[in-house]
C-alpha cells in the first residue's frame, strides 16, 4: 500500500477495529481517544470488554460489549429434559450457584404443583445462605484485588474455604453445585455438617469486625469508593438493577422479603440499605448482609433440628418425566440480586422455553450511564462494586 492509500484508509476508518469499535467511533467528539478496557483487563475477568471514549483521564462515554463467553444456557434448556437441565444452573453463576438451582427447580415445582418437604426447605435455605456468604467473600476479595489490595483476598479465601468445606458435605462439590432436585434436595445435611455450621457462625461473627478494621474503615479504601459511581434510585429503576446495587441506592427491595418464597417469612432478619448511592454504599450493604445471613442461618439450623428425621425428597420425578403444560415464574434473591426463571411447558419431556433473568445483566447495563465523566481508575471501582459474574451476562 502506498503511503497515500494508508492515509486514506486512516481517514475513512480511523481506529480500524471491529463492528463495535467502529459503531462506537461514530458518536465520538473531536480529539478524544477510544480505549478498550478488557477483555484482558484484570478487572473485567477476561470476558468483558468495555469501550471507552476518554478525554485525558476522564471517561466521556462507555459501552460494555458482551458475548465473550457463549454458553447459550437458555437454548440448551430446550434440548435437555427437565431433569437434565439442573446442572446447567450451577454454571450460570458460579459465585452463587445454589440460588440458580433453586430458581429453576422452584419454577418447575410451581409448574407441576409439587410440594417440597419441610426439611428440604430448611436445607435449601441453609445451603443457599452459606453460599451467599461464600459469594460475598469472593466479591470482597476480588473487588479489593481490583482496587490494588492483595492481602484481603487471602483472608476472604481462608473463610470461604471453611464455608466450602461445609457445603461439600451436602452437595459433594465445591464450586458449581447442582444439588437441588425437583421436589427436594439431593443429599441430607448430616450431624457433622450441622455441627460445622454451628461452629462457623460464632467464628465468622468474630471475623467481621476484623474485616472492618482491616479494610472497611481504612482511609485508602474510603477515598477510592466514597462518592464514586453515583447511581440515583432513578437509574436503578430504569435499568432494573436489583440486589445490593439497588439497596446501596436506598431502595429497600429484597425478594426474600418482598416476594416471600419458601420459608423465609419465618425468619427474623433485616434488609440493610444505604442511601449514599455510591460504591461505598454498595460495599457497606454487602458487609451488613453477611451479618444478617448469619442470623438467618442460626434460626434455620434450629428449625432444621426440629424437622429431624423427615424426608428430604418428594416422590422424585423419573428422568423422562413429563411436566404438565403451562408456564411458571419463580424468583429468588441471590448474592447479586433477583434471579428469576420462567419456564414454559408444552407437556413434553423437554421445556418449551426457559427464560433466565439474571441480575448481573441489568446491573451492568447501568454502567454506561454511571461511568460518564469519571476517571478511568474509578471505572474499575464502579465495575467491581456491581459484583458482576460474566456467565450471567452471556447466558
Amino acid at each position, binding site marked *: 500500500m502506498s503511503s497515500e492509500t494508508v492515509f486514506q484508509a486512516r481517514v475513512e476508518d480511523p481506529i480500524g477495529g471491529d463492528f463495535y469499535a467502529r459503531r462506537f467511533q461514530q458518536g465520538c467528539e473531536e480529539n478524544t481517544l477510544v480505549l478498550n478496557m478488557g477483555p484482558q483487563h484484570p478487572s473485567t475477568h477476561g470476558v468483558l470488554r468495555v469501550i471507552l471514549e476518554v478525554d485525558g483521564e476522564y471517561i466521556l462515554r462507555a459501552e460494555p460489549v458482551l458475548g465473550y463467553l457463549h454458553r447459550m444456557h437458555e437454548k440448551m434448556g430446550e434440548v435437555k429434559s427437565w431433569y*437434565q437441565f*439442573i446442572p446447567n444452573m450451577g454454571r450460570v453463576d458460579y459465585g452463587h450457584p445454589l440460588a440458580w438451582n433453586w430458581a429453576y427447580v422452584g419454577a418447575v415445582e410451581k409448574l407441576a404443583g409439587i410440594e417440597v418437604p419441610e426439611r428440604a426447605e430448611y436445607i435449601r435455605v441453609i445451603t443457599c445462605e452459606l453460599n451467599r456468604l461464600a459469594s460475598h467473600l469472593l466479591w470482597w476479595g476480588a473487588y479489593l484485588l481490583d482496587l490494588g489490595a492483595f492481602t484481603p483476598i487471602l483472608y476472604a479465601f481462608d473463610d470461604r474455604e471453611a464455608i466450602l*468445606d461445609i457445603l461439600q*458435605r451436602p452437595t*459433594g462439590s465445591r464450586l458449581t453445585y447442582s444439588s437441588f432436585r425437583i421436589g427436594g434436595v*439431593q443429599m441430607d445435611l448430616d450431624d457433622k455438617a450441622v455441627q460445622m455450621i454451628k461452629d462457623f457462625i460464632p467464628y465468622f461473627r468474630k471475623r467481621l469486625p476484623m474485616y472492618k478494621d482491616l*479494610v472497611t*474503615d481504612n482511609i485508602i479504601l474510603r477515598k477510592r469508593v466514597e462518592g464514586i459511581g453515583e447511581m440515583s434510585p432513578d437509574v436503578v429503576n430504569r435499568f432494573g438493577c436489583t440486589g445490593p446495587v439497588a439497596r446501596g441506592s436506598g431502595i429497600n427491595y429484597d425478594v426474600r422479603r418482598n416476594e416471600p418464597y419458601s420459608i423465609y417469612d419465618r425468619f427474623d432478619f433485616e434488609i440493610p440499605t444505604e442511601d449514599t448511592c455510591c460504591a461505598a454504599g454498595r460495599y457497606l450493604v454487602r458487609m451488613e448482609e453477611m451479618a444478617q445471613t448469619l442470623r438467618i442461618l442460626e434460626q434455620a439450623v434450629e428449625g432444621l433440628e426440629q424437622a429431624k428425621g423427615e424426608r428430604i425428597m418428594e416422590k422424585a420425578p423419573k428422568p423422562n418425566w413429563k411436566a404438565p403444560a403451562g408456564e411458571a415464574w419463580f424468583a429468588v434473591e441471590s448474592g447479586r440480586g433477583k434471579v428469576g426463571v420462567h419456564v414454559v411447558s408444552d407437556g413434553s419431556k423437554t421445556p418449551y422455553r426457559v427464560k433466565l433473568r439474571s441480575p448481573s445483566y441489568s446491573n451492568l447495563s447501568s454502567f454506561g450511564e454511571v461511568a460518564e465523566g469519571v476517571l478511568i481508575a474509578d471505572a474499575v471501582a464502579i465495575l467491581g462494586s456491581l459484583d458482576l459474574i460474566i456467565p450471567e451476562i452471556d447466558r
Partner: protein
Amino acid sequence: METIRRNILQPIKDLWSLIVGLKVTGKYFAMKQVTVHYPRQVIDDENLKTYAGHIELVGKPKDPCMPRCISCQMCATSCPSGCIKVTKQKAPKPTPEQQKAMEEAKAKGEKVKKPAAPKNPAGFMLDYSLCSLCGTCVEVCPVKSLRFSNDIYLVGTSRDDFKFDLLERLRSQAEPRCDAPASKKQ
C-alpha cells in the same frame, strides 16, 4: 472549628485507621500459615470423603470384580452430558443341543426359548472430560451400582487420559480378591 476538624482531626483519624489495619496484618503475620503447599503437602483425607468425584461402579458383595449393574442404560440416557457408554453383552451362540431344541419347539409351534444374554455389561466407559458431576446417574441407577469416587488427584496430558474404563477400574480396585482377572467375555 471546621478547619481544625478538616485539617487536623480528620488526618489523625485517617492515619489511625491505617494503624488499626496494620495491627490486624501484624497479628496474622505471626500466626500459623493457612495455605497448603501442594504438591509437597496435601489436605487430610477426612475432607475428601465427602467430595463427589467421577463416578465408579460398585461390585457385587459376593463377587467384587463383577459390577451390580444390569445394563439397563438408565444412567446413560439420563446423563445430561452424554458421557456414559454402557455396552450390553451379546446373547451366547446356542449350543447344538439348544439349537436342536429350538428348532423342535419352532416346528411344534411352541414359544422358542433363546439363550438369554448375561445382564452384566460388556463395557462401561466414562468420559470424565465431559462429566458435569451432577449425580443424576447415581440417583437413577435402579440397583445402586454407581457411586462417586473421591479421587481428586487426577492429572493428564490429553483429554483421552480421562476416558475411564470403569469395569477395569472396578477390577483393579478389587484386585487382591480377584483370583483370575475377568476376561471381556465373562
